[in-house]
């Protein structure tokens, strides 16, 4: 016997074997339908007795196994049912002959046989035979079961008679020696009369009777016979049969102890063997019934003695196996005994002993096994290990079986079977093909082994001719570990995202490369400043959050929801490119090419623009910006991204990723808005530090210079621009600015609105830089002090008060101070264009485009000192300006109606300007050699005169007018008069101050200046007054005037001066002395004209 039945279990010992075979041409499916119906009759209660006969059906049974029927009767084919098709009566005799032939195969052991003929219509020619049944078709055979039952009963009758026959004839006649097939020749020529031989015969026969009793449902009798057989056989050292007797004993005990059966699942057993379900319902003789009392009370008595305890069963099994082990030819028996023992152990939950037993199975050498048998053997081992809970061992053998399927010796490797078996091993290696399980927590299981298994899966699926599967597995493998061969496959079959379903129902979920590359953070980027939409304020209720009726609440609304579902507080605009930044890194030791990387979104039509990137090996964090264009307005949610790595497309959802930082993935998309592009006549420059600006320009101007900037706005969007506003804001500057920094005229531009797509408009903006570069405090002090030094003739100048003595040796214009003046000042301003249009305008959105203007103002010319110098006239004074040219260029300075003054680079010159009523404005004209400055070379410089100087420059509020001879006199005016004529003198006081002044007294004192420092006041005889020389002025109210009139008579010719002395009566008043600065009068007395 060379074919082991791996499905054997202990209960099989009590069954009778029936072979059901097709005869001739029987369709396979029809045969198995009939077979199933036959096999459903697996136990038959025998009439008039409480016994039950169990039947084991086989549709295939090797005749050489049948030869072991004497050794163990359940191996003996006792019944044969043939199924055949026979359409015409003509065929019938032939069919009948074939049935005879088939019977002869098992002829020696058959108790009974049946032939089921299908398809024969009409009359059956031959007379009714009990062993033949005719059915018109395979579908029309209602009494098959009934017939099988009858058949089983007839078998039982034969069995019972044989049992009784064998059980009774124990004495007297010579007992026949039962032999195992390989033993037959050993006993040739042996002395058949020896006691030893007789005992052997007896023992073997006892054992045989035990087998028959067990089959016939007499468990108790069987136990007794087995015990006797064991004793007999032990005494004659007939080990093979001793083993068989022990095994029989075990089987009977197992049947007694475990009425539920030891076969673990019905599916694994060949159909026809009683299923576990109805095994439970079996009524077993000797077993306890539900009420706890055996139906046959007589059997109760001997049970305790004869039946083996649970431990003993195992002991005896081991003993039996060890005896079998002595015979090489009994390998199959040993193997099957082992398997049976394992099943019993599994039920007893003695896994370790079971594993030892199984270990033994591995070593049983059955000689040359066919490949199929090997596979079967390993599969069974695997199943048995599974049964005892050794999942790893089970997986190991399953894998061995799988490898056996494709062993190189097999001419046609069964890759499909291999693949199927390999898949079954996965749980044993704690490997799940679902990436969801994989990404959970830390790594589980035995990496090296898993890796190997996956490789095998890949190979098997490829050889199976299913490259799609192969790619899927490889992807998974890649996800776990590293390999590159995937690319070769994907070139033939792109890896997709759809679930691959295997024919056997197993679904392979798609494998996403979430780790290639690894994404660490996802952040949605706001639009660039110039493209951000701004909600127009002022729409009622728009800005208010409707979540709470309170304006302020200390309870902050915590968003309980997921971080990712949080809405971001900026908006994207329909039709504009939006960006999402991913921080990725490549954990692989090779360069990773990621193609077709794009965004997965929901909520809004989104056109994702895929990117391709190449990450260097084991790169650090690497920013990747994925872009896309929302095509409709609404709320958009970024769900994840898709990649194509090694040709495998993966969809990676953010929610499935671990360790991804995200600041929220939902953003509002507002309707489309126009887009303006700004370009300027000046080159762009670096952005200003302080604010977010779309563009900025910077230029360098000399103080006082003006330049025009032309800004061209082009509508590059698709929407029409409807509104445009322009505002400017000066950024925090402490400098005092004269006039407007930026001026523009928008009217022309506005007349071009609405601006269609592609059109442009230009706006001129004037930039003028007028700054005060002389603003240092100490400088002004200096100037003030210096005023003293330049004050010339105190007599003829308006009186000025000396505030403090001038510090000597003031290093004016030294290098140190020159550097101080030389620094560049900066002016910054932002021009903001606010525009709107299209659908976005309806929603109240607008866009802002800002242009930063930065001007570096270089000092050109500035006034280092300002001082006044009295002029000869009381109405005028000289303003002395020390003008410093801090540029590197030669300048020509011109002021109103004055001579031009040429200033060389870094030169300081004093510039005199006759005082006018207002502070002067100087016009400096640079004669620059610098080409860039040649464009605009006029500078307007304004300086600030401080209050003190201004006071000096202003005329005193009391205006004194002296009129001599009807002619107003001032310093430079010489009044002519004739000797002997009375010269009228009029002193007029006009009060321009805000309060009344007076009373004053004035005394007119004439004197002669000899121009040598001597002044002669003794002129009583040369000049005489007509009237008083002293005037009295009473109170003069504001804006009023008072006039004192007198007359002088010059007696001699000559130059005379009149000094009008002033006396203030009111000591309480302290009016500034400058207010009383009266002009000195120069009178030239001449000879009277000779008529």
């Amino acid at each position: 016997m060379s074919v082991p039945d791996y499905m054997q279990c202990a209960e099989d010992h009590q069954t009778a074997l029936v072979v059901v075979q097709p005869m001739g041409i029987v369709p396979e499916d029809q045969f198995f339908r009939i077979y199933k119906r036959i096999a459903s009759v697996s136990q038959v209660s025998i009439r008039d007795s409480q016994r039950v006969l169990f039947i084991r059906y086989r549709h295939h049974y090797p005749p050489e196994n049948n030869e072991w029927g004497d050794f163990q009767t359940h191996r003996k084919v006792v019944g044969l049912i043939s199924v055949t098709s026979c359409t015409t009566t003509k065929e019938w005799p032939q069919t009948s002959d074939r049935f005879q032939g088939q019977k002869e195969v098992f002829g020696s052991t058959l108790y009974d046989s049946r032939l089921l003929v299908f398809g024969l219509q009409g009359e059956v020619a031959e007379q009714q035979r009990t062993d033949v049944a005719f059915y018109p078709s395979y579908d029309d055979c209602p009494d098959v079961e009934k017939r099988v039952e009858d058949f089983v009963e007839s078998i039982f009758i034969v069995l019972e008679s044989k049992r009784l026959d064998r059980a009774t004839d124990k004495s007297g006649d010579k007992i026949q020696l039962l032999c195992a097939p390989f033993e037959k020749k050993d006993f040739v020529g042996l002395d058949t009369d020896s006691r030893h031989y007789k005992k052997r015969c007896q023992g073997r026969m006892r054992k045989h009777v035990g087998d028959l009793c067990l089959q016939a449902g007499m468990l108790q009798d069987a136990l007794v016979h087995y015990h006797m057989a064991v004793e007999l056989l032990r005494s004659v050292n007939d080990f093979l049969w001793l083993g068989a007797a022990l095994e029989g004993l075990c089987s009977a005990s197992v049947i007694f102890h475990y009425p539920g059966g030891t076969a673990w699942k019905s599916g694994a057993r060949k159909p026809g063997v009683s299923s576990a379900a109805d095994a439970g319902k079996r009524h077993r003789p000797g077993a306890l019934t539900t009420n706890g009392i055996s139906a046959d009370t007589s059997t109760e008595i001997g049970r305790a003695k004869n039946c083996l305890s649970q431990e003993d069963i195992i002991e005896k099994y081991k003993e039996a196996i060890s005896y079998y082990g002595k015979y090489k030819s009994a390998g199959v028996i040993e193997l099957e005994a082992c398997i049976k023992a394992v099943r019993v152990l599994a039920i007893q939950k003695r896994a370790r002993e079971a594993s030892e037993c199984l270990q033994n199975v591995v070593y049983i050498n059955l000689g040359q096994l066919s490949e199929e048998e090997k596979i079967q053997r390993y599969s069974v081992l695997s199943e048995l290990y599974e049964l005892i809970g050794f999942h790893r061992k089970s997986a190991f053998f399953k894998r061995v079986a799988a490898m056996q399927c494709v062993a190189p010796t097999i001419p046609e490797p069964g890759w499909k079977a291999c693949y199927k078996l390999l898949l079954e091993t996965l749980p044993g290696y704690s490997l799940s093909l679902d990436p969801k399980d994989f990404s959970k927590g830390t790594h589980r299981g035995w990496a090296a082994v898993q890796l190997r298994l996956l490789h095998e899966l890949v190979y098997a699926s490829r050889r199976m001719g299913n490259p799609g599967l192969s790619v899927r597995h490889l992807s998974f493998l890649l996800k776990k570990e590293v390999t590159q061969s995937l690319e070769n496959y994907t070139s033939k079959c792109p890896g997709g995202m759809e679930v691959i379903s295997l024919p056997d129902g197993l679904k392979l979920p798609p494998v996403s490369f979430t780790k290639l590359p690894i994404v660490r953070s996802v952040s949605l980027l706001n639009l660039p400043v110039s493209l951000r939409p701004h909600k127009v304020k002022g729409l009622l209720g728009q800005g208010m959050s409707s979540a709470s009726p309170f304006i302020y609440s200390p309870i902050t609304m915590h968003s309980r929801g997921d971080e990712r579902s949080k809405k971001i507080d900026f908006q994207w605009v329909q039709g504009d490119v939006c960006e999402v930044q991913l921080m990725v890194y490549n954990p692989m030791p090779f360069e990773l090419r990621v193609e077709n990387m794009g965004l997965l979104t929901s909520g809004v039509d989104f056109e994702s623009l895929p990117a391709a990137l190449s990450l260097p090996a084991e790169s650090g964090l690497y920013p990747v910006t994925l872009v896309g264009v929302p095509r409709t307005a609404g709320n958009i949610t970024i769900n994840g991204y898709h990649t194509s790595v090694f040709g495998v497309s993966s969809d990676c959802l953010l929610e499935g990723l671990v360790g991804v930082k995200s600041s929220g993935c939902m953003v509002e998309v507002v309707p489309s808005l126009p887009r303006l592009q700004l370009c300027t006549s000046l080159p762009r420059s670096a952005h200003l530090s302080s604010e977010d600006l779309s563009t900025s320009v910077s230029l360098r101007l000399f103080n006082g210079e003006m330049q025009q900037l032309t800004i061209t706005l082009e509508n590059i969007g698709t929407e029409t621009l409807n509104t445009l506003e322009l505002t400017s804001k000066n950024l925090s500057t402490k400098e005092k600015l004269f006039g407007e920094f930026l001026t523009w005229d928008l009217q022309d531009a506005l007349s071009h609105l609405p601006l269609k797509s592609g059109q442009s408009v230009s706006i001129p903006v004037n930039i003028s830089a007028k700054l005060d570069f002389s603003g240092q405090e100490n400088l002004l002090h200096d100037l003030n002090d210096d005023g003293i030094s330049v004050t010339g003739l105190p007599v003829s100048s308006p009186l000025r008060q000396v505030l403090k003595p001038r510090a000597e040796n003031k290093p004016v214009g030294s290098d140190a101070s020159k550097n101080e003046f030389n620094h560049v000042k900066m002016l910054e301003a932002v021009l903001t264009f606010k525009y709107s249009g299209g659908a976005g305008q309806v929603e109240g959105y607008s866009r802002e485009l800002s242009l930063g203007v930065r001007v570096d103002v270089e000092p050109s010319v500035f006034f280092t000192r300002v001082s006044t110098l009295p002029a000869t006239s009381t109405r005028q004074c000289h303003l002395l300006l020390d003008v410093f040219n801090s540029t590197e260029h030669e300048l020509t300075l011109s002021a109103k109606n004055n001579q031009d003054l040429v200033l060389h680079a870094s030169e300081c010159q004093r510039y005199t300007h006759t005082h006018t009523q207002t502070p002067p404005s100087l016009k400096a004209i640079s004669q620059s050699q610098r080409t860039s400055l040649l464009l605009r070379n006029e500078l307007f410089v304004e300086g600030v005169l401080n209050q003190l100087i201004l006071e000096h420059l202003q005329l005193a509020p009391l205006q004194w007018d002296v009129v001599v001879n009807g002619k107003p006199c001032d310093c430079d005016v010489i009044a002519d008069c004739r000797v002997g004529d009375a010269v009228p003198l009029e002193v007029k006081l006009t009060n321009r101050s805000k309060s009344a002044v007076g009373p004053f007294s004035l005394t007119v004192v004439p004197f002669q200046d000899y121009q040598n420092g001597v002044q002669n006041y003794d002129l009583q005889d040369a000049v005489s007054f007509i009237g008083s020389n002293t005037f009295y002025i009473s109170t003069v109210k504001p804006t009023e005037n008072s006039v004192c009139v007198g007359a002088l008579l010059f007696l001699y010719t000559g130059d005379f001066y009149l000094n009008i002395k002033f006396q203030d009566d009111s000591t309480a008043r302290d009016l500034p002395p400058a207010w009383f600065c009266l002009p000195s009068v120069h009178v030239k007395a001449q000879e009277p004209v000779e008529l």
Partner: protein
Amino acid sequence: MNCPLYIRSVPTQGELKFHYTVHTSLDVVEEKISGVGKALADQRELYLGLLYPTEDYKVYGYVTNSKVKFVIVVDSSNTSLRDNEIRSMFRKLHNSFTDVMCNPFYNPGDPIQSKAFDSIVSTMMVQAC
């Protein structure tokens, strides 16, 4: 968890075979632990003895109280290694493993990369061969 923290074999070729051997031996280890657990949970003998013999190798097992498993596979033909020697090897291994666990920079569950542990294993392997 039962994932390998440390595997070493000499010679290195055919290492995968030992992976399989050790992996399947875990079945026996678990069976042994669960079997003993019922009787004496606290004072369990850490040394599990011979797990199972194969044709060429003997597999011994050892389980710490924290259920960390050590498995030693030796050549069957090596008669110098008896139960006592194996037992002392396991004890050494356990001590060294304890040192590894004491390292504050070691995360339990990570593969062991300690040089000290490595050298202990190496010396044991030299002795055994």
